[in-house]
Each structure stands twice: as C-alpha cells, then as structure tokens.
C-alpha cells in the first residue's frame, strides 16, 4: 500500500513531456506536486471517463506518452473502457489505477469487496492486447518498486494498465478551479505549441 501523494511526487519527479490526465479526487492533490501545461486536472469531467479521454489523446498524439491517474471507483463506472483499451489502446497510453477500494470523492463508500482489477483487465484482453499487441497488465504495491519501474513504464511500448493500491492520510485541499473550458484550452494550446513548457493563451 502506498501513500497517494508519494506516488504523485515520484511521478512528477520522473515526468518530462508526458501528458498527465486525471479527474475526481486526484485533481485535488496532483497540483500540490505539479503545475505543468500538459497537466489535465479536471474534477467535474464525465464520471469514470478519465482513461477514455486519455485514450483519445494518445490516439491523436502518438508521439507523446499519456499517463492517466484513474480511480478504481471511476473504473467501475466505465468498465467497458477496459475492453476498448484492449482493442484499440495505443502504445503510448499508461493507465495507473489508484486502488483505494472506495468511492472517495463522494464520501468514501466501499467498493464491492471481491472485485479484482488485475483479473478484470486480463479478462478484457489488455495483456498482449492493444492496437499493436504490446498491452501489459501489472500490479505495483510499494513505492520503491514504482520508482524503479517508472523509467520502464515511460519507455516501453504499451498500453500499460497498472493497479496501484494507495491510501491517503493527508487533508484534501479544496477544489482550486472551475473554469472547465479553460482547462481544456490550456492543454490543447500547449499541445498545439508543441513544447512541454509552452505558454498558454489563457
């Protein structure tokens, strides 16, 4: 089990020009470790659809890695996305499933206890699947392993689906933005500019 904020710090430290997509609770903590034009932290996005949005981005921008920070509750709201990822997921897509076994954003209600996300991903066909047959499913349960495996995840062809058991012991910050169109525009402008540090039109 990993502290979620430590996972975010490790990812932010290793990340260079990758797009990082998240919705719901992750949007409250990711800005504590990153402020990057290629961050897409949008709390009120369609529920459960972070990885679908990330897949669209990855298909449109094959030259860039797209990292999705997805909650396990969100995945249950769009389970079919695993099947779609197994069918079309491109090599540049990385989905990190933050497994805290609750619907954290709406009060911490527990998820169905018996669900196994690695088994679901394998059953969907992600291992050995994706657009080019390089799909990989794995579970990373401690921070040291995550830190050591990150270079590989960022380098090797995917799509990757990584189940990561996490907890959070920190107080969550308040929602820091409500300009939804601005969040979209910031990312699309940065992509159009082509540079990770590009200024935006906001």
């Amino acid at each position, binding site marked *: 089990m990993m502290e979620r904020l430590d996972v975010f710090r490790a990812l932010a430290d290793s990340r260079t020009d990758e797009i990082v997509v998240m919705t719901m609770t992750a949007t409250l903590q990711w800005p504590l470790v990153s402020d990057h034009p290629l961050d897409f932290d949008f709390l009120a*996005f369609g529920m459960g659809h972070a990885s679908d949005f990330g897949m*669209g981005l990855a298909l449109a921008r094959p030259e860039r890695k797209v990292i999705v920070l997805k909650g396990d509750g969100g995945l249950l709201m769009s389970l079919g996305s695993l099947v*779609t990822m197994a069918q079309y997921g491109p090599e540049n897509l990385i989905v990190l499933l933050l497994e805290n076994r609750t619907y954290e954003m709406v009060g911490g209600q527990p998820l169905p206890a018996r669900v196994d996300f690695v088994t679901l991903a394998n059953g969907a066909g992600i291992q050995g699947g994706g657009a080019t047959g390089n799909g990989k499913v794995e579970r990373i349960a401690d921070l040291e392993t995550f830190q050591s495996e990150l270079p590989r995840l960022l380098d090797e062809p995917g799509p990757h689906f990584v189940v990561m058991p996490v907890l959070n012991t920190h107080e969550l910050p308040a929602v820091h933005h409500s300009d939804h169109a601005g969040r979209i525009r910031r990312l699309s402008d940065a992509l159009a500019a082509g540079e990770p540090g590009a200024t935006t039109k906001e």
Partner: protein
Amino acid sequence: MADPAVIADRAPIGASARLTIDEIVRLGFTHVIAIPDSESRLLCEAAAAHERLSYLTPCREGEGIAIAAGLWVGGAKPLLVIQNTGLMEAGDALRGCGIGPRVPLQMLIGWRGYAGASQGTQPVDSAYPYTEPILDAWQIPYEHLMSNDDIGVIASMDERANRTSKPAAVITGWKFQP
C-alpha cells in the same frame, strides 16, 4: 419536436451511406466513433472501410464521447455515430466532456422510433418522443438528415460546432441506404 409526418413526406427513404461518408471525409473528419445500430449499419461499414477514416467501436456511448473529446483536444476531428438511446445513457459524459468544457463534439444520432411514429404507428418504446426535447434541454442544436437532399446538414453542424465551440448534432430518422 418536429412533425414526423412532415419530415416523412419530404424524405421517406434515408440517405446514402456512401454519399454521407464522402461528405464526412470532405469535411476533414479523421475518426468515426460508433456504437452501431441497425439503422446505421451501412454507414458504419462504409466508415470502417474508408482508408482516410479511423473507425472505433467503444462499448458505450459515454466512453465514445470521452474518447472523442480526447481526440479533439489532441488535434484530431472525430465524429460520433450513436443512437438516441445511447445519447440518453451518455448524458453525464456529454455534459462533462462536451458542453461544460466547450468541446465541439459532433454527433450523428439515430432516431429510434421515428419510422414507426412517422407512419402513424405507436413507437415500440419511449426513445422517439424524448430525443428532440433532450437535445433542446442541453441546448444542442440539431438538424435532420432524412435523404440525400439533406446531406448538407452535416456541413452545417460542422460549421456551427466549430464557430460556437459547443456540441452539435444531426438526427437521422431512416435507415441508411447503400
């Protein structure tokens, strides 16, 4: 809501899938994301076969909407092909990935129940009467594609979506023809 009898009198046979795809390609769409139904089957087959279109079939419409939003932000130009029933299922995705963030999603929406309603028979379910009121409630502009004479409404949708940076739709009432 449109008077089905009026539309039926004008165009009772459905548009050509081939001509519709030609128009979609002419307008520069790069991806067709479809949840096929019996009315759109020929259109989907034509999209899948076209060398200049990438064709994806996700599992549900909400997924498709989010994928389309990502494609658009990444610089591609997606078109969604869904049925009215799927539109109803996908309301939160449309709100969160399209209307709220002002992503100009474009949708061809199959109007299940229209054919029965236009012929004076009861629709088999409630999908027909709710379709236009739902689009109206979400302030999504739409026009009808009922025959080859109407294929220009796709360009109209494209122009309006891009000008306003908001979702726009075309409703198709009849089964696509070859």
